[in-house]
């Protein structure tokens, strides 16, 4: 039996369909330029539409001005309730809750500023100037702290205990109210021969960057210019003994503890259990910025704390 062609022959024979729906909410279909072939709901053109409500199409609204009176705004970043805006050469801070405006820095070059936040700091640069904002106070400093460029000076003081050749150093330290603390690498060395006298230190009373609040004085008794690598070697040699002495402390944690803390003296003292091995600069004292002199009566008990290691800034990985 022949198969009959049962396809509809005329529109009237076709299966009735519901009335064509006109929809609005699928937006512009850019791949299809034939308007007949668009899917229902797709638009050929659409201007100033608002898709926010599912199943409906609205009209966009104009913006709400929340602050004005600035130059052309070219950069923006928000962290927490803190909105930072780049306008002209200014970096402006807004407290979003109050919209209080503060110009925190005004000497960028006017290009777009790129920003990111880490801990309580905002980092900003336009490719030339790098500035860091301590958000709680909006204090602006450089990103990092330049290593001390000049050596301290040492002179012979009153009669004291030590004898021998010492190497003197200092570092810059930044301490923030939230407990954040950063320290630079060592200054250039000042060598001094001592014969049973105290050491009279002199060092900068001011610092090149506002975030520096303290100096730390370091002394090395090796008689030669110390390197931090020597300190590392010495400390690594004592690692096993230290782990035994400090329980589960790992070297990395220990090291962090030593360079970050002034109080973990007991742990640090283990490092001098064998003075013949331990070399390298040790912390003498921490000095508030503003004083320029310090009298150092060297004793074995002072050799309690290692200086920070080099931060290995320029280690190339891929090649320049």
């Amino acid at each position, binding site marked *: 039996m022949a198969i009959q062609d049962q396809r509809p022959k005329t529109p009237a024979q076709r299966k009735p369909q519901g009335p064509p729906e006109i929809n609005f909410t699928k937006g512009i279909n850019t791949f299809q330029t034939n308007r007949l072939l668009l899917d229902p709901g797709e638009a050929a053109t659409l201007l100033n539409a608002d*898709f926010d409500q599912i199943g409906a199409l609205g009209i966009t609204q104009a913006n709400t001005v929340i602050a004005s009176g600035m130059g052309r705004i070219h950069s923006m970043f928000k962290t927490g309730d803190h909105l930072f805006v780049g306008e002209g050469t200014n970096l402006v801070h807004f407290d979003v809750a109050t919209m209080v405006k503060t110009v925190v820095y005004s000497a960028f070059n006017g290009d777009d500023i790129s920003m990111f936040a880490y801990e309580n700091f905002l980092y900003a640069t336009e490719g030339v100037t790098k500035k860091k904002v301590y958000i709680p106070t909006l204090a602006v400093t450089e990103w990092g702290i330049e290593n001390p460029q000049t050596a301290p000076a040492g002179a012979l003081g009153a009669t004291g205990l030590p004898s021998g050749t010492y190497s003197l150093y200092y570092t810059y330290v930044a301490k923030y109210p939230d407990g954040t603390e950063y320290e630079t690498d060592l200054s250039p060395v000042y060598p001094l021969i001592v014969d049973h006298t105290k050491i009279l230190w002199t060092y900068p009373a001011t610092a090149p960057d506002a975030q520096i609040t303290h100096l730390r004085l370091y002394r090395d008794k090796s008689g030669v210019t110390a390197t931090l690598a020597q300190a590392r070697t010495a400390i690594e040699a004592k690692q096993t003994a230290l782990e035994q002495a400090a329980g589960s402390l790992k070297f990395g944690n220990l090291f962090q503890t030593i360079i970050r803390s002034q109080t973990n003296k007991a742990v640090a003292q283990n490092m001098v259990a064998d003075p013949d091995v331990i070399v390298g600069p040790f912390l003498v004292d921490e000095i508030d910025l503003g004083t320029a002199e310090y009298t150092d009566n060297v004793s074995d008990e002072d050799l309690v704390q290692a200086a920070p290691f080099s931060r290995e800034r320029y280690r190339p990985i891929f090649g320049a």
Partner: protein
Amino acid sequence: MSLSIVGRYNIAGGARPYGPVQDPNDLDSMYFIMSYGGDYWLYKFTWPSTLVQVVNLGAYINSHTFNVAAIANDYSTVLGELSADLHYCIAIKKASTTEIKMVDVNLSDNSVTVYAPGYTSSGFSGRTYVGYTVGGTYFYTYFFVAGGYYYWEMKRLGLDSGSSLTANNLFGLRSVYWTDDNEFFGYAGESWRSMSLLLEASGNPLNGTPMIAPGEAWGKYSVTMWPYSDHLDGVYGDYPQIPKGWDDNWQYGFGSGGYGGLRDLLFYRKNVVTLQYQAIAVIEDEVVAVGAASTQAFDIWQTGDDASLRRMFFSFGSTEPKVYSSLVWPPAVDSSIAVDTGGVNHHITSLHTADEYVYVVHFGGTDQGTCITKLMESELVAGEAEPSIGGIGARLLFKDKRVFFIGVPNYGKYLWWGQPLEPQALDVGWDGFNTTVFDDEDNTSLNALDDNIYIGSQKGFIRLRGKSPDSWVLDQTLATTGPLSDKTSSVTPFGLIYPRENGLWLFNGFTSVLFFEKGKNLLSNVNWDEYARAFSLWDGRYYRLYYPSGTAVENDRELVVDLIGGIENARGTEGDRAATFGFADLTTNTVYLGDASGNLMTLGGTAAARTFSLTTKEYPTNGLLAAGSFSALHYDIDLAGATLSIIPICDGVEKAAKTITNTTRTRSKVSLPDGNYYRVGFRFEITTAAAVKFYDPWYLV
């Protein structure tokens, strides 16, 4: 992307050089003709300092060289390989006589055969143009010699005495062009006529008949032309076919070269008000200025003959001519260099490219003689369009407690990365950063995605895997396009979205796909000159792109793409919104925007009048509309007191608008126009500050 002088060789006392052409067997060698002692000599110059007088081409004492029309290479061998022979075609005016000489140079021993007497004619006062056959067995050179205002001749000259092939009257033959299809075109300005000649494939003999192109008049200010399809196209003053963007103040220009595509062209134009010249590119009918203005313009070149190349060089200036390197699209002068510094009457006569080098042969005046300057241009490579993204400053990325950045001026090819743990530990200067170079490409984006870092350039993405420099691995991804600008690439849950000239692309960490194509009403009017100001945001649901449109300098337009339904169901709209920069706070669902007037804003929220328009799809009615099946449009809308215009579009023709209004959500109907229509669509328009809502669906009943 900068020019620099590799070196320069001066030929003391050298006169104006003509027709430099590179030795096809040694791209550091070139031949040119220069007068010496009253004679014209063929010279061979090999970089850096070898100059050989090859042969004396003849004495033309007390004569003035009218034109060395061209030096044509023999393209008769296939596949673009140049033959070992280099043929010079020389047209020199001697007194009142125009002599055309065919010179065959054997490059193996620098021997030269001058086929004399060549072709000699007298009485010509016009110009001489030279073309050559392509793909034939024999090498012939064709000369169009225009005489006076009423006559031109076409001559063919091979390794014989040549012959006169055809002649015709054509007012003031102004220019002749030939194509790779052995077709010649010419036009005559004052007569408003053009012609075309078609050669046989061999180029011999001539089998064309001069044809006066019908219909179209060419204005007397015609400056250049190029073949397009089956007719000639040109650039000329105050004429309806002038390319889009032509300004009446720029009435005519000179010098030209078909660029690549049939609609692409480079030429100069002259401002009749300031009398300054400017280099111009016409890209697909759009006129764009690509060079700074100057009181004199000399020459213009494109790099190579690859149509994909979008870079050109041109020279400007009289007392201190400079060579500019320009990106043709988008137009940008990215470098310039003075090719000479002393003397007068500078004239740059030619430029040739070889690998990444550019040779400029120019006449430096009496103090400088002939100079051959070798330039290096780092971007002489075929590739995609290279829009400029200059001025974006550093782009920072903070990941794994390490700072990465790109885009510091002059270091665009590098990824810079700081030391680990704390950004505070970074040095004060920039030299504290390490650098990684990526294949000589300018990096255009830097984003963290799927725990990797992706460094984008306009040609794709490189993946940086690993947590520390000790374990970092760089992978080339499959993506073949990348962002134009870091500011317009946004990380979304679907991947990195970035716009290119043809629409929005999505990079998923492995490859990139075009998912939202540029359309007639979408991204159709971007001002690429100011694209560096564009920026994008991902606000958790919408990808928002703010860009300058038309001639706007600042961003005045937004493209909003809703991805709530995923990439496959992306839906977009364009809008009018001025914003110079912004930030999307995903924690509070707030979009902050700034503008050029110093206003800090949040997106939306203000009931100000906005113009909304929507054009629907077309619905096939199969004639049912005519049968009365569809007589009304049933709507469901809350107009909040506003008035909506409904424009029926029946078979593509807009009908009279109908208006409706209401104050609350209303379902009602509006009648449709009568007629025998087979497809119907609608455009809705409204300008209002009211909170209007269109509710899906409406019906045709």
